């Protein structure tokens, strides 16, 4: 039988609310697993042992008093370390925020707290969420539990591993160009980026504000629906969050895909794609077809430009967002500067790692006098072309099916000295953020080397429920999401 913390979030909340077991027992069970595995995976940067037990006891007390413990009563949750949790260290895996203690809760954190969730720890990431392998962390890389010599994907690698090793049933990440979906794919779990504006960004440290979105990792689709129901909704503190009713995602779980129109864009089967990935993804399309979906080829002709658009817009926004890290009110300060300007330069030289500096410089260059039109303005226009491709496609289909990552997990160190090749890891996930549409990665196979492969579904703006519907039907017909790495 599964240990308590390895159950689904729904089973845990039901069990805790029904007093079959206590939130404290679940938290203790989860903490034992986290501490046992973290030496090998480095998924967690901070383990909130004391805080989690206090939170769990509070949930148990509430239930003992006769109240309902909430939809996430006693459910252990892990948070990417760029999400604010009051009183917890929030580093963004950067030396510049090495000792930063969050002074407030992110919107999503507050929503989960209100439903009785228990936060077990803060998970590793590429510094400021910039990367595809979780190797750009100032606190060492996270390792893939399926093969410790390999990367877990990134930037939310720690959250993906936290769920893949079943230390928690739900972890939150952030996705700017694939940072939830790509690690979910490489670790064999579900990961979703909701529609831009569906979830408030208040309390996630900003990377690229027009692309960032918070989303969950889970090991089953029922928990994904539940997590989305809890974290979605409008927030006065994020003016880009939208006033749209939150769908009943759980009602989508049993609808099936009969009659659903599914498009497969030929442009996503890029040169250099691992043939095993292609085969697994096409088999997923066959499964949807067998379940009654209508599958047809489509074209997204400007997909070839997505990477270039992204690597202008995201660094440009980052160069502006990261200007706040100057070591004045908080953050790392280098001793010995003679004046203010020198102080800024030294704090940022010593506080930021190489990838962050690289992206700040790309962005600063793209926005600088003489280059703005050729780079930034041009990229914004091509972003419109990419969005129009999706508008045209969604006039014909309800769902788009693509690979997530062109290859299964690669080896640690393999791409670290070659930023451009690393950037290509996100070629299938980036267009989603540019268009603002929702995307989900769902396990769809294992490679011959026993490494997870994921399939990605896209839906139109605010059609997040279509992703849950398709994922639920697909997972009911397959067993890939039930495969667990030996390390758990």
């Amino acid at each position, binding site marked *: 039988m599964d240990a308590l913390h390895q159950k689904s979030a729904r089973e845990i909340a039901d069990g805790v609310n029904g007093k079959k077991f206590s939130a404290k027992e679940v938290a203790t069970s989860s903490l034992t697993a986290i501490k046992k595995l973290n030496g090998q995976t480095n998924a967690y940067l901070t383990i909130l042992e004391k805080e989690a037990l206090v939170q769990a006891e509070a949930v148990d007390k509430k239930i003992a008093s006769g109240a309902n413990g909430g939809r996430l009563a006693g459910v252990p949750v892990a948070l990417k370390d760029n999400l604010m949790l009051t009183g917890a260290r929030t580093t963004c895996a950067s030396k510049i925020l090495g000792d930063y203690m969050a*002074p*407030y809760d992110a919107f999503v954190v507050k929503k989960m707290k209100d439903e009785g969730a228990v936060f077990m720890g803060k998970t590793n990431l590429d510094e400021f969420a910039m990367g595809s392998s979780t190797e750009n962390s100032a606190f060492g890389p996270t390792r893939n539990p399926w093969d410790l010599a390999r990367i877990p994907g990134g930037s939310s690698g720690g959250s993906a591993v936290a769920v893949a090793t079943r230390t928690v049933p739900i972890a939150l990440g952030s996705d700017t160009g694939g940072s939830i979906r790509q690690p979910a794919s490489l670790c064999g779990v579900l990961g979703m980026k909701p529609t831009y504006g569906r979830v408030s960004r208040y309390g996630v440290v900003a990377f690229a504000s027009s692309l960032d979105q918070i989303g969950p990792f889970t090991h089953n689709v029922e928990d994904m629906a539940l997590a989305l129901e809890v974290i979605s909704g409008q927030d006065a503190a994020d003016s880009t969050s939208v006033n749209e009713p939150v769908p009943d995602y759980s009602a989508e779980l049993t609808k099936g895909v009969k009659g659903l129109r599914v498009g497969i864009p030929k442009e996503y089967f890029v040169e250099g794609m691992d043939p095993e990935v292609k085969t697994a993804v096409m088999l997923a399309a066959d499964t949807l077809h067998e379940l009654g979906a209508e599958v047809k080829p489509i074209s997204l002709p400007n997909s070839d430009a997505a990477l270039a658009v992204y690597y202008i817009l995201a660094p440009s926004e980052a160069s502006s967002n990261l200007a706040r890290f100057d*070591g004045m009110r908080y953050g790392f300060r280098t001793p010995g500067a003679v004046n*203010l300007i020198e102080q800024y330069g030294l704090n940022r*030289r010593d506080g930021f790692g190489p990838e962050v500096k690289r992206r700040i*410089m790309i962005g600063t260059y793209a926005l600088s006098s003489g280059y703005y039109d050729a780079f930034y303005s041009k990229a914004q226009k091509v*972003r419109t072309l990419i969005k129009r491709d999706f508008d045209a496609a969604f006039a014909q289909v309800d769902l788009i099916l693509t690979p997530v990552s062109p290859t299964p997990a690669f080896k640690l160190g393999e791409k670290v000295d070659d930023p451009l090749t690393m950037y290509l890891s996100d070629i299938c996930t980036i267009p989603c953020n540019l268009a603002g549409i929702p995307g989900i990665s769902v396990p769809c196979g294992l490679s011959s080397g026993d490494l997870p492969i994921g399939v990605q579904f896209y839906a139109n703006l605010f059609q997040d429920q279509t992703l849950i519907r398709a994922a639920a039907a697909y997972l009911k017909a397959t067993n890939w999401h039930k495969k667990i790495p030996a390390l758990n």
Partner: protein
Amino acid sequence: MSHINDKDVRHVAKLARLALPEEEIAKYQGQLERILGHISELKNKNTDNVPAMSHPFEVGNVMRDDVAKRFENLPGLYKNAPEMEETFYKVKKVIE
């Protein structure tokens, strides 16, 4: 438009307030040149009469009453300060 020399790297680093050590200039120059070379392929896309996009869907201004709200957890803010005196952040002289 993608040729980057070491002078450009120094200029950009200065704008971004990054005091780069001399030995890193050449490294970044090569990497930036390669990356910018790749992304400058965008010039091949015809964008005549295409509007620029800064947001996934149309948004307007979100208005609220202009009422100041106190942030309650001031000790939580002060705790993160590298250097303080009473309730003031201590920094180098701003005006020389």
